[in-house]
């Protein structure tokens, strides 16, 4: 069983009356609500958290792409992955991912992913989401009717750019290139593992099955709501005669661990409320641009990251409701262990991406939750799926071939920095803590 630490990088300081006063957290949220000085602190805080997850033994650290969004401050996750490549050594860099229809030409993604793969010594997971309706059609102006076709063409171009031995011509409908000749090429051969983050479009399951890609269902509504999607996915895999390997399915789950169940509620309840009621306050008119979902997906009525049903489902929900509906798995290490075992087994997923930093959660709480999970929960779940081989994780360089960053200067940069300040902290100190 593999565990990944997933950061959305939310803005932690939306006003209390955000939901009442503002139209949407995404697409047309006023820019004045973002303070770049606060943003500076947050980016560094969040990278610290991802680096901490690396040292705590998570298999992967995940970043993703959103645009004009106050709960996802990474228009370019590749920049974050680049920063993490140098400051982490163990965890895989799971970029979930780049919305490849948005890049012109899409070989930009092939190039940047190849750079990340080479820089990190083969630790990259390449995620290719279609992207949400908010990100692709409203923020980036893609015509919804042709988005999926453009995505598929971009995918074909990127895979060919990674795998063809020689320079080639590409005469696509959306991209025409006389010389495709990728420099650098990826370190992992034939290319980094491809994971497809999805929100429940039925076509994506066929796409994953046909290409042997891992499917990552990204929802904020927990494993109980996800059962229908997981069942649909496994049904497609079975119908196509594919191996029912749990490692071909990833799932995102909000997780919060404290000393006891009561302590978990005291610590995390306000941040859950912030996440579900402020961060996910999305104008419903942005959720499903006409043509973004196929008729089949509409009829299947599957709920993705943000859905119309999702937005009413959480009106007035309390901590207890969040837990009972399975939106969050939270409580003492024992409670979380039982909840996640149930989630993993009922969905049959081999990769769990967990959101530990939720909404407005400050770094000390995110760290506590992460550490308790890593020490007291993760070891007990490691042994799940012993009979299956994970064919979807990166194949990195052996340690003796891996280059390491030069040692950090051990002197604080400024004389006035205290020993506990950010610039004086060393990764080694944290491991020793």
């Amino acid at each position, binding site marked *: 069983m593999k565990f990944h630490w997933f950061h959305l990088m939310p803005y932690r300081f939306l006003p209390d009356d955000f939901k009442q006063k503002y139209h949407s957290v995404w697409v047309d949220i006023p820019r004045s609500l973002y303070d770049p000085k606060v943003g500076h602190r947050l980016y560094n805080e969040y990278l610290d958290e991802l680096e901490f997850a690396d040292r705590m033994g998570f298999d992967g650290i995940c970043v993703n792409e959103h645009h004009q969004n106050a709960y996802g401050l990474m228009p370019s996750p590749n920049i974050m992955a680049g920063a993490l490549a140098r400051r982490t050594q163990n965890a895989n860099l799971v970029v979930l991912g780049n919305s490849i229809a948005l890049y012109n030409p899409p070989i930009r993604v092939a190039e940047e992913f190849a750079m990340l793969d080479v820089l990190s010594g083969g630790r990259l997971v390449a995620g290719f989401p279609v992207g949400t309706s908010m990100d692709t059609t409203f923020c980036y102006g893609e015509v919804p009717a042709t988005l999926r076709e453009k995505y598929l063409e971009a995918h074909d171009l990127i895979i060919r750019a990674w795998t063809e031995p020689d320079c080639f011509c590409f005469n696509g409908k959306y991209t025409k290139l006389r010389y495709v000749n990728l420099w650098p090429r990826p370190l992992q051969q034939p290319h980094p593992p491809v994971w497809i983050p999805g929100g429940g479009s039925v076509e994506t399951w066929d796409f994953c099955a046909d290409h042997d890609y891992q499917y990552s269902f990204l929802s904020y509504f927990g494993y109980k709501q996800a059962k229908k999607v997981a069942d649909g996915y496994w049904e497609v895999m079975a119908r196509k005669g594919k191996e029912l390997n749990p490692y071909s399915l990833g799932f995102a789950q909000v997780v919060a661990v404290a000393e006891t169940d009561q302590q978990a509620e005291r610590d995390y309840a306000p941040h859950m409320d912030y996440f579900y009621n402020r961060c996910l306050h999305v104008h419903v008119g942005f959720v499903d641009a*006409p043509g973004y979902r196929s008729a089949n997906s509409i009829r299947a009525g599957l709920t993705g990251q943000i859905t119309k049903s999702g937005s009413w489902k959480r009106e007035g929900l309390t901590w207890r409701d969040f837990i009972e509906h399975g939106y969050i798995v939270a409580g003492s290490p024992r409670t979380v262990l039982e909840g996640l075992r149930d989630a993993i087994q009922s969905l049959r997923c081999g990769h769990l991406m967990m959101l530990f930093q939720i909404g407005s959660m400050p770094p000390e709480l995110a760290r506590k939750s992460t550490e308790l999970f890593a020490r007291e929960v993760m070891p007990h779940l490691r042994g799940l799926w012993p009979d299956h081989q994970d064919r979807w994780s990166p194949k990195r360089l052996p340690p003796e071939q891996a280059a390491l960053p030069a040692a950090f200067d051990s002197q604080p940069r400024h004389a006035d920095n205290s020993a506990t300040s950010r610039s004086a902290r060393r990764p080694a100190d944290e491991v020793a803590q």
Partner: protein
Amino acid sequence: MKTLRQLSSARHQVEVHEFGRGEPLLFLHGAGGLTGLDAFLELLGRGFKVIAPHLPGYGESTGGELIEDVFDAVLFYHQLMDDLGIACVPVVGHSMGGMLAAELAASDIHRVQRLVLVSPAGFWLDRNPIPDFFAAEFKDLPALLFHDPNSDVAKFMMTAPDDPQALTAMYVERSKRLAMASKFLWPIPDRGLKKRAYRIAAPTLLLWGKSDRLIPPIYAGEFQRHIRDCRFELIEGAGHMVMYEKPEEFCRCVLDFLRQ
């Protein structure tokens, strides 16, 4: 009367609504498409044989995937006219249909005899941006589309069915139609008509509901600037759905213009 017609190119089946007798008149619908209860078409049928085809992707017209841009849509209408044996015809287009009618008239000046553009799309003014119709919630559409969002006609056209199956069917059809419309209108309803409108030779009537809040009447100025023979009329007490809100007045204006 509704008929299904196979185009000779075999690329499309076309759902055509026909009313009245006499010389043909082509009506091009807006982004929402025909409702099946389009009284104004019957009224226009008092003077003409009204031919109102559904664009591929709408209703029972097929082959929407073959139409990806304005040029494809214009060729589709040319093909339809060829098949119907129509050399030159008056064309009335509403909203998105007005944009396509103008493009049709610009693409071949011998094909469109007179042109009526009803609250047409096709231009963009930075100072008067057209509201994002695609992002509007269903419940907020009446206020954009109708002079009086609480009028009977607004309620009749904008009430969603209660039955969940009917609701899903409506959602699927609406999504299919607007997905097609998005090829001409998303994210900004300007596909370069301003470069081509100078070609339009047909005498043109611009007809607008005075309280159109989707494409405000100020847009008439852009069309007048680009089209040689162009007059402009406003209908009071009507919004973007002028022909549904004021069918009698609408038809009187159109027929008066076409008979001149």
